[in-house]
């Protein structure tokens, strides 16, 4: 187990190094950060001066090493536009996005697990077909359009929910639904498939033969085992939710990390964009690493491969 863990850790670290080097060099080669800082009215001398102060005249690998070294200590530099510490800006915005992500996943799980279980109890029944129908429709619904439709219905016409900002819990309801429903079809299908497989297994037959009450068999014996792959998919979906939050946060003017990244791109605020890409990559790598290690701990066969 130790060798496997170390090996996976090494690969995870290598992925982060490559991702950060890629984003850093791409963004620095493709655009001129000195121009972005100086603004449109700056003279050629000003721009030269800014290049020297910020160190843009150094070779790219040198700049990367300096940036990466600081990033390791949590220092992502200063925003070109807001003149603020990027780490402070991220820390301010992160709770909003985290709240949104957790609410969205909670919504998705509350919808998909009961539907998946009900569908698995009677495959091909009316319930199963309805659940599948909802899943198929859900997968085709463009997230941002769904968000706009929710806004028109519940915000503009019924006036039940606020459509912009993040002042109260009510501001999170529509964004969470719009972001969460997208994960629902995949989670539901996985729950259903897992439950069908487990319900046909020998130990469930034994449990039933022992005369255990059906709810006990269902929840204590079946769901517990079927839920494992759903947990690791949830981890991956959480990473997707962070990516999807860009559009949703922009639409609902929810000022989290997604909103910040859109704002930063519009202002060519490189340090902010780089930091967000790296943070999202970190999330993905850590979550998949955790899922891999969990699976390896549960299933010894994975470790030897």
């Amino acid at each position: 187990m130790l060798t496997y863990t170390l090996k996976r850790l090494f690969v995870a670290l290598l992925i982060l190094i490559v991702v950060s080097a890629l984003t850093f060099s791409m963004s620095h080669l493709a655009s001129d950060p000195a121009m972005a800082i100086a603004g449109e009215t700056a003279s050629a001398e000003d721009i030269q001066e800014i290049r020297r102060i910020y160190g843009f005249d150094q070779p790219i690998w040198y700049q990367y090493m300096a940036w990466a070294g600081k990033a390791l200590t949590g220092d992502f530099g200063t925003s070109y536009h807001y003149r603020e510490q990027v780490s402070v800006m991220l820390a301010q915005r992160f709770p909003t996005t985290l709240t949104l992500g957790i609410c969205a996943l909670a919504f998705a799980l509350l919808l998909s697990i009961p539907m998946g279980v009900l569908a698995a109890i009677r495959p091909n029944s009316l319930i199963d077909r309805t659940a599948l129908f909802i899943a198929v429709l859900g997968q085709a619904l463009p997230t941002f359009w769904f968000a706009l439709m929710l806004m028109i219905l519940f915000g503009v016409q019924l006036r039940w929910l606020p459509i912009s900002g993040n002042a109260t819990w009510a501001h999170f309801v529509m964004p969470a639904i719009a972001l969460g429903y997208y994960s629902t079809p995949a989670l539901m299908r996985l729950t259903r498939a897992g439950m069908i497989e487990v319900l046909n297994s020998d130990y469930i037959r034994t449990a039933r033969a022992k005369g255990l009450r059906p709810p006990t068999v269902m929840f204590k014996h079946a769901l517990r085992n079927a839920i494992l792959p759903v947990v690791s998919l949830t981890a991956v979906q959480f990473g997707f939710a962070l990516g999807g939050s860009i559009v949703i946060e922009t639409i609902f003017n929810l000022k989290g990390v997604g909103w910040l990244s859109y704002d930063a791109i519009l202002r060519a605020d490189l340090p902010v964009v780089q930091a967000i890409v790296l943070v999202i990559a970190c999330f993905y790598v850590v979550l998949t690493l955790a899922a891999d290690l969990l699976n390896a701990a549960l299933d010894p066969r994975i470790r030897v491969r």
Partner: protein
Amino acid sequence: MVAIDNRSAEQILEPSPLAKLRRRIFGHYSFLFGAGVIVLMVLVALAAPLLAPHDPYYTDLSKRIQMPFWHADTTPAKYNPDHLLGTDKVGRDYLSRLIYGAQVSLLIGFSAMIISGIIGTTLGVLAGYFGGRVDLVINFIINVRLALPVFLVALSVGFVFGASLEIVILVLGLFLWDRFAVVMRSITMQAREMDYVNAARAIGVSTPSIIVREVFPNVLNSLTVVATVEMANAILLEAALSFLGFGVQAPEPSWGLMLNEAREYMFFHPWLLTLPGLMLFLLVLAINLFGDGLRDVTQARERA
């Protein structure tokens, strides 16, 4: 001399494989629906100049925001039977723009899918066939790609290089190959172990020829299914990018861009937002149903 048919009665009475396939296809309603809508959309896109009642780029500021036909207020100032689905904020015919929008979505979805399909299949088949170090390196590349947030990168590229239809196709094509690679890798790994592949190797067939002639036909079914998923994905991403202003640029009639332009009319003219979204939804739904159905139909053939 009479040829003796030594098949059993069941074998003779059983329908031919082709008839079975036909029966499966026509019994699969969601597959038929998906295929039907796709064919319709492609025809609409190809025949757009014939079908569209107006020039989708022609603006007429005297006819801004005309109502669609189902609207209650049909006074001549607000409704004009010439514009069945009304007009947008600069007086362009909405129906014509919706029709031309099919061209943009299909073109981007298809081109991005082809580019990512070529990259992903090449990587996946190489990793799956050679294994070992090749597999290790390609697996690493796949993981790096998965760690990069596609949407954020696409937005940044759009900002730096200037957003356009070509850039959107290129970025999506260069980023959406991960699922192709993952699926092709695992299927090639299985196909590699087949007896006929070993046999081909034993009689000295060259490696490229084995990959193309023996392995590739096996991955074709799954390839088509993944292709539909990624095409739908690319269409949705393009719409979202255009909606944020970093995709297809005005005055092109992209459904995502139309949603962007209609956003300010959310309060009084929500139908401007409903229609392009419905088109997107219908197209993506059709592609998904087609892909799902294709999997059912072809898998059943393998079992039979």
